[in-house]
């Protein structure tokens, strides 16, 4: 279906456009650029829509967990539709609000900070494979690229905290910087385990090396790394129970206390986009990406061949996204020294130990994963 739409757009829209506007010599290049832009839009528009409705899902899910109803009033055309219009109403409200720039703040950096926190989490989608063929940039060092970009998200927080010229914001920024640096190491080591197990940095090859059945996926041989990766992901995205950078009970809202209107909502979008990114990365690296969970089971395998592979990736991603909400509704906030201890003294030793175990499993060709 997606291929048909894509072909239709490039035949009927892009081809005439380039043949009119671009000199003959550069037409192939122009066509490639336009096609890439179409592909980028085809990834980013659904991602941003998911971000919008993820906020709605969060309020609903946490509402149900706490025995409330959640937003149920704003709908479309006079129908309340379980509150489905809420994210749109919120977006409109935030867009029309004034952005207040505090006196004594650093104006340029103050405006730049939200952009710096959103851009990396969207750019990382470039290398994520949606199925065997659907990937925007199939690069060799895909995993490194993702790791590098997720490590950049901290700049938005730090710069926002400093440029606001406010003590609460600054405290939030410092907390966040120390926390993200600590958990990035554990996260990096967990991903080294994935690289050792799959023998590749290319995300598509990582998924393909997990094929077989549900027990061939890396969650089983790399179970400690899988758990640590997801928990570090929670810490990296500053989500509960690791949300001390915001800590509304202690430092009001942390790094974005001075932000309002659209500038605030870009931070908000960045947080949710980062969560979706961590969810989809967990699905790709530990839960077989687009591979069907019924693969290798006689009988059931044949029943589900009609399901497009992308559906499985999205289903797994949704599950991990749900975990983010579930954790937020369940756990109280960690104390800061406990966060640091967990990162440095528990996670890093475990990941290093399990790295040795995985290497041993790979070297000895242990079935069923590495033969």
């Amino acid at each position, binding site marked *: 279906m997606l291929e048909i739409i894509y072909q239709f757009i490039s035949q009927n829209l892009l081809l005439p456009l380039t043949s009119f506007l671009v000199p003959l010599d550069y037409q192939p290049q122009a066509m490639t650029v336009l096609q890439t832009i179409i592909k980028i839009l085809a990834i980013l528009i659904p991602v941003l829509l998911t971000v919008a409705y993820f906020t709605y899902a969060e309020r609903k899910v946490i509402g149900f967990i706490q025995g409330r109803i959640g937003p149920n009033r704003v709908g479309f055309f006079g129908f309340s539709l379980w509150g489905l219009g809420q994210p749109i109403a919120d977006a409109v409200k935030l867009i029309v609000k004034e952005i207040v720039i505090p006196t004594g703040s650093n104006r340029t950096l103050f405006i730049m900070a939200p952009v710096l926190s959103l851009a990396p989490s969207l750019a990382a989608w470039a290398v994520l494979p949606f199925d065997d063929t659907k990937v925007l940039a199939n690069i060799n060092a895909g995993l490194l690229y993702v790791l590098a970009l997720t490590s950049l998200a901290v700049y938005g927080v730090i710069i926002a905290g400093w440029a606001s010229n406010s003590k609460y914001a600054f405290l939030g920024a410092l907390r966040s*910087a120390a926390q993200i640096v600590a958990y990035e190491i554990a996260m990096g080591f967990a991903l080294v385990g994935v690289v050792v197990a799959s023998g590749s940095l290319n995300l598509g090859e990582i998924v393909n090396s997990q094929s077989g059945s549900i027990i061939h996926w890396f969650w089983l041989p790399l179970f400690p790394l899988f758990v640590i990766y997801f928990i570090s992901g929670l810490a990296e995205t500053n989500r509960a129970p690791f949300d001390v950078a915001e800590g509304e009970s202690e430092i009001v809202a942390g790094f974005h206390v001075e932000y309002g209107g659209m500038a605030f909502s870009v931070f908000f979008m960045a947080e949710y986009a980062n969560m979706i990114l961590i969810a989809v990365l967990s699905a790709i690296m530990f839960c077989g990406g687009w591979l069907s969970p019924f693969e290798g089971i006689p009988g059931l395998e044949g029943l589900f061949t009609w399901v497009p592979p992308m559906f499985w990736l999205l289903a797994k991603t949704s599950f991990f996204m749900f975990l983010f909400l579930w954790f937020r509704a369940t756990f109280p906030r960690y104390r800061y020294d406990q966060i640091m201890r967990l990162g440095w003294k528990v996670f890093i030793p475990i990941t290093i130990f399990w790295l040795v175990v995985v290497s041993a499993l790979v070297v000895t060709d242990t079935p069923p994963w590495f033969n």
Partner: protein
Amino acid sequence: MIEQIIFYLFGGILLLSAAMVVVMRNPIHAALFLVLSFFASAAIWLLLQAEFLAITLVLVYVGAVMVLFLFVVMMLDINLVTLREGFAKFLPIGITVAVLMVTAMGLVVGADYFMSDTYMAIKSVGPDYSNTKELGMTLYTEYLYQFEVAGAILLVAIIAAISLSMNKSKITKSKKPEDQVFVKKQDRLRIVKMQSEPNTKNGESEA
């Protein structure tokens, strides 16, 4: 053609941001320009088809080192006025050091490397060529001992840094997580048997 445009674009950004690191008065701005110059040099490395090194540069220097740098610089209490003083006084020393460094580097590297005819065009390789794999093969076979020595040196540095910072810890009071974990209910909670209070209105005591 397009590669040349990209090279000059990022080369320009690199030179400009590197100059700004020195010129900028505010140390935070200087550090952020250093980040930008790392990005620009990563882009130039990508043009040389060294994708592993380029991404590692961003990952290590931008993602970790510069974050800690900013962390420290932000906490310094810097007076910008005193920072500007003595510029003329230190200028001769600065110029001497700069000239010395440039001559030393020139003597080591040699002029041969900077002639355009000694440069070879980058050998274009297919998409299947993995830069990471090649680097790993060279690093872990040919340069294994050097790699191990570098690792040992870094380990010594880590131990030294930790022992330096541990010196002060005798006067700081820190919690012991292992004690906290093993706390039992009996250690903290005392249940006292007592008579139930007579029913009062709105929790107010009758007395």
